[in-house]
Every structure is written in C-alpha cells, then in structure tokens.
C-alpha cells in the first residue's frame, strides 16, 4: 500500500472518530467494559496462581529422628537426600532448636511451659524438612525414605516418623479446592469477557450499519474496497486503543484501593504491587486486545457492505 493512501486512510479514520462524537464515545465505553473484564481476568488468574504457589510452598516432608540418633548419622542421611534430583532444599532443626522454637511458640502458655520443665529433659526430636522441586515429587521422596536409607552404625533406623501422610490429605484437598476455584472463576470471567466482546462487536457493527449509505456513496464515486475499509478499521483501532488506555489509567486507583484493603485477606497478594510489577505485560495484553477488538470488529462488520 502506498504511504499516501495509508496517510489518507489514517487521517480520514481519525477525523471520523472525532466527528462521530457520541457514537465514538459509546463505542469506547463498551470497549472499556470489555477490556475491564479482560483485565479482571488477568488479576484473577494471577491471584489464584499466587495462592496455589503459596500453598504448594507450604507443603514439605518432615522427617523426625529418634532421640538417640547421632548427629553424624543425621548428617550422612542429609547428604544422601541431597543427591536426590527431586530435592530442592533441606532444613535441619536440631533438638535444641526444636525446644527453643517450642518455647518461643508457647511463650504465653505458662501451663505448657511448666509441664515441659517438669519433664526435666528435652522430649523433642531433631528433624529435617524436605522441600521438593515440584509438589508431585513428594511421593517419590517418601518412597525413598520408606526404603530405609537412614540407619545408625548398629543397623537400626534413626527415623522416628515421617509426617507426609497426615499432611497429604489436607494439602490435596486445598490444592483441589484452589484448582476448582481457579477453573470456575476463570470460566465465569471468560463467559463475561466473551459476552462483552460480542456486545463490543455488535456496537461496532451498529456504527458501521449507520454508515451503510455512506459506504455505497464511496463505492459509487470510485473508491476501492480497501480504501473504503481502511478508515473504518482505523476508527475501530482508535476506539479500541483509547479504551485500553482508559482501562490502564483506571486500574491505577482501583488496584491501589483494592490492594490496600485486601492484601491481608488475599494472603499477601497486593493488586497494586502486582500491577506495578507487571505493568508492561498487562499494558501489552490490554492494548493488544483493544487493537484486535477494534480492527477485527470493524473488518467483519464492513465486509458485508463491500460485496459488489
């Protein structure tokens, strides 16, 4: 396409947008709603993903050692575990550390502390917590632990108990609930997004329908189909991109307010912080969606008037 033709199409499309006034305003408004719902979808997906990741990170396998386990045996066992490809991190808690943590945890519970003091010796076991690289790998780690790799010098097991089985059911339930919420939430948001995209398409179609006589005149004065189509697509793109910019601007106060009010409620997920950290990513999706929505809706709507 010649530069002069593109320039004329752009200039004509921009003028049409400005001169159509209230019609352009209505189109932008509808697109703001559509793109607003799409941005909600982005935040919802991020929130659910972060919650899922946070829960996944809370899953670990804790191995408690018998009180008679020698530190050298525990270190040897840790070294064996480190060689497993599934293991991401191992944290050792000695008996003394466990006791200090217990005391700190129950600092306000004098009855428990008193009972502990009366025991005379440290009843707590040393333990290690194992973090897998992927939650699905815990089963294979537990399988390894059950093969009896932790033996003392005299051949007895130094492992007292492994707590994975108790946690597993609860963790699985929470993971399932989050997964289901993610699917349902995103499903509902997708339905809303789809509905609003259809409304946006219908609005653009209506706008072009009102211009059908004008399109006929353009054809009769000898304009090619591409030359007629161009300004309408430009007008659609301007409406889409303008709507995207409005949404991106509106998101600043909205996420700031919601972020301040709900960060604790959403387990540390701050909408405003997320928006700030992912501004380029969100802006590209919203502007891209606005561009696509405006151009595609115009292209499809005008096609039927350019048949002859």
């Amino acid at each position, binding site marked *: 396409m*010649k530069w002069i033709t593109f320039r004329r199409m752009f200039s*004509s499309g921009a*003028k049409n947008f400005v001169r159509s006034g209230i019609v352009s305003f209505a189109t932008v408004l509808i697109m703001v709603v559509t793109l607003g719902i799409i941005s909600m979808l982005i935040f919802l997906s991020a929130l659910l993903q972060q919650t899922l990741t946070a829960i996944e990170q809370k899953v670990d396998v804790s191995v408690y050692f018998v009180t008679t386990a020698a530190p050298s045996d525990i270190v040897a066992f840790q070294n064996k575990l480190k060689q497993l490809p599934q293991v991401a991190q191992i944290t050792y808690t000695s008996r003394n550390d466990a006791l200090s943590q217990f005391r700190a945890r129950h600092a306000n519970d004098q009855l428990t502390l008193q009972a502990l003091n009366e025991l005379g010796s440290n009843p707590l076991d040393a333990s290690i917590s194992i973090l897998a690289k992927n939650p699905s790998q815990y089963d294979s780690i537990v399988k390894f632990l059950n093969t009896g790799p932790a033996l003392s010098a005299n051949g007895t097991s130094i492992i007292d108990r492994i707590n994975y089985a108790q946690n597993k059911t609860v963790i699985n339930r929470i993971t399932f609930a989050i997964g289901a919420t993610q699917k349902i939430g995103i499903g509902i948001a997708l339905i809303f997004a789809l509905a609003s995209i259809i409304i946006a398409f219908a609005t653009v179609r209506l706008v072009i329908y009102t211009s059908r006589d004008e399109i006929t005149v*353009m054809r*009769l004065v000898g*304009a*090619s189909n591409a030359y007629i189509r161009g300004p309408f697509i430009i007008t659609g793109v301007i409406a889409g991109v303008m709507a995207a910019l409005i949404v991106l601007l509106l998101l600043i106060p909205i996420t700031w307010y919601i972020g301040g009010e709900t960060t604790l409620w959403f387990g540390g997920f701050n909408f405003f912080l997320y928006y700030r950290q992912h501004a380029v990513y969100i802006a590209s999706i919203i502007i891209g969606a606005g561009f696509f929505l405006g151009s595609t809706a115009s292209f499809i709507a005008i096609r039927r008037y350019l048949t002859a």
Partner: protein
Amino acid sequence: MIYFEKVSKIYNSDKVPALEDITLSIKPKEFVSIVGHSGAGKTTLLKMLIAEEKPTTGSIFFESANIHELPRAQMYKYRRKIGMIFQDFRLIPHKTAYENISFAMEAAGKPDEDIASDVPHILELVDLSEKANHFPRQLSGGEQQRVAIGRAIINQPDVIVADEPTGNLDPMNAYEIVQILQKINEFDTTVLVATHNKGVVDLVGRRVITMERGKIIRDDESGGYVL
C-alpha cells in the same frame, strides 16, 4: 460509447419487468434526458449503467467493455469514469463540502498538490467557495446538490449520470443545476439525466428518451417533454 443490448430486469418480488428488452445507444458528448412517470424504469436504467444493479438478461457496454463482466477488482476503476448525481445528494455527512469533493480525488489516488489546486477551482465553478468548510447539514438543498455535482465532475469523468437532480429543489435552484450540467456538457462530457421535470427537459432541448412500464416508447433527437 454506451450501448444497452436487449436489457431486461425483473426483480424477484415483481411480476412486471422493471426494464424490458431495452436497446439503446448513447454517443460521446450527448446530453440525454430520460423522462417518464414514477416506476417507468428510469432509475433502474441508470443503476444498470453504474453497475449498482445487474440485468436479468442482456448486456451493457461502456466503450468496448461489458460492464457486468468486469472483475470486482476493476469495478471501482470503471466507476471513476462516471460521475453520479442523486436526487437526495448522498453526501458524506461528517465531511465538509471541500472534503466531500476531495474524497473522490483521494480515492482515485490523486496527489495532494492536484487536490489542493483542483478542489478550490471546482468549488468556485459551483459557486461554493465561501462554504467550503460547511458540513452538508449546514447547506441548503441547492448547495448540497452543487457539492454533489462538484464531486461528480472533479475526476473529469467521461459521463455524468444524474438521477432526478432537481427533484428536491425549488425552481430557481433547479434552473441553476441544469445550467451547470449544460456547462459540463459543453466541455465534452456526456450527460444523462433522468427526470420528470418538464421545465428541465424543455430548457435543455436536446435528445429525449421517453420510458413507460420498463420500455422505451419514444426517442427524439431534439425534443421536449411529451408524455
């Protein structure tokens, strides 16, 4: 130049043909008035010529080309050879008088310099220089029709086709429009006017084709309005 060969048109919903077996030849530089009552087939005839309607049977030739066999990609180039004027003006509402005229040049890919020199000249010709920046809603009926004429002639077409150009105008404005059309014809442009305005036909005093119920019933080389 223009040749209708046994052209008939039957719309699906009608039993009576809109056009029936029309054979007609128009030479270059002619000024032809097509007259007849409403529903006689005048507008259908013109729509066939600008390829807005297809004939049911028969062919229409512009120079040597059968216009209804032109590929779709060539149609807009053919339409640039014809300047069209309508009873209801059909201006683009959100473009000014200047832009309505320049649009036809822009669509034809004319350079900016040509547009900048030709459009003011045409506005002057149709006596609208002072209203170049007015939108159609700010112009009277006569002024709107003069913009439409400006748009029709800006690309120096071979033929001007006017469908009831004075239909919405008072006698004074109608007279002015006919004078402009005559002036265009003096510059060797073929003019076809469909009208049932007796005054227009008598004023022009050139070839008159009379239609009735889709047929040509009279073709006078130099005549007046007779029904």
